[in-house]
């Protein structure tokens, strides 16, 4: 079970690596579509990448309501084994 802070760091590293984002732009409040310019195809790549790192099979449906980096962290935390 990873802490919220660990999850945030993992997500942040992934975003910087995959999309060549500048580190300071990746904050919990950042919106994927407007602030980070991540579209639906990027989202598929991101979710596939994270599910490999966290070693969890996930359904894209779990991520439908994700709008911000914080939403993503919350969703990953919820999906972790208890």
């Amino acid at each position, binding site marked *: 079970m990873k802490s919220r802070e660990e999850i945030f760091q993992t997500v942040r590293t992934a975003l910087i690596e*995959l999309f060549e984002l500048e580190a300071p732009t990746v904050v919990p409040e950042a919106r994927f579509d407007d602030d980070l310019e991540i579209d639906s*195809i990027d989202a*598929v790549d991101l979710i596939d*990448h994270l599910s490999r790192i966290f070693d969890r099979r996930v359904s*894209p449906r779990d991520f439908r309501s994700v709008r911000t980096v914080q939403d993503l962290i919350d969703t990953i935390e919820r999906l972790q084994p208890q």
Partner: protein
Amino acid sequence: MKRTDFYWLRLVGTGLWFLVFGLVTFVLGFMVLPLIRLVTPNRQRRMLRSRAVLGAGMRSFIHGVSDLRFIEYEFIGREKLGRPGQLIVANHPTLIDVCFLLGFVPTASCIVKAGHFRNLITRGAVIGAAYIPNAPTEEMIHAAEAALQAGETLLMFPEGTRTVPGRPLTMQRGAANVALRAARVLTPVYISCEPSTLSKNLPWYRIPPSRPKWTLRVGDDIDLAAYRGVPLPIASRRLHSDLAGLFGGATQVRD
């Protein structure tokens, strides 16, 4: 411009062909393919049989309209299509582009408009042949990936819809993404139709003044190895921009 090549006959004929096409699609989708389903329990064989039937239908349609001199066509490099794990990307100037490609490469799967899975006429056919709906995005990407990994040939129109005449060609990034995820080989097909007809925002009865000719030219395979070595989103953006350049240069969009 002067109306030539038996304009009125071509007009009435075009209307008839539309009717026949819809009718045949419906009969295949709701009678022939369900029959195939009944007698073919094996999924893989059922899919191939269904595609063979639909492909034969589309090929007959093309032969019919060209034998009766409604259209002319030239298909250059057809033998390069239909390889296992091959992703075929084509531009999409007219309504019947898919009939040429699936008619002559009948084993291929195809990404089709999700609406075709709800439309009463096309529904039976696209489900029977296990084509892939273009939405939602994540399901399309994963289904396309699975089809290519299983060794199927896959056809995609990266524009997502027909080109709007007079506007520059705009492509979606899905094709580049799918190519880098799973294609063994990526092959472009450049389609043009002269004079323009059956394009976006044009009703079927606005037929051109002279007999239209389709030219389909299969391009050289695109080397995917050149894009590896960086994360997928970056690689797919590079490939996408190269594809857009290739198609933008190879096709001229006319009013």
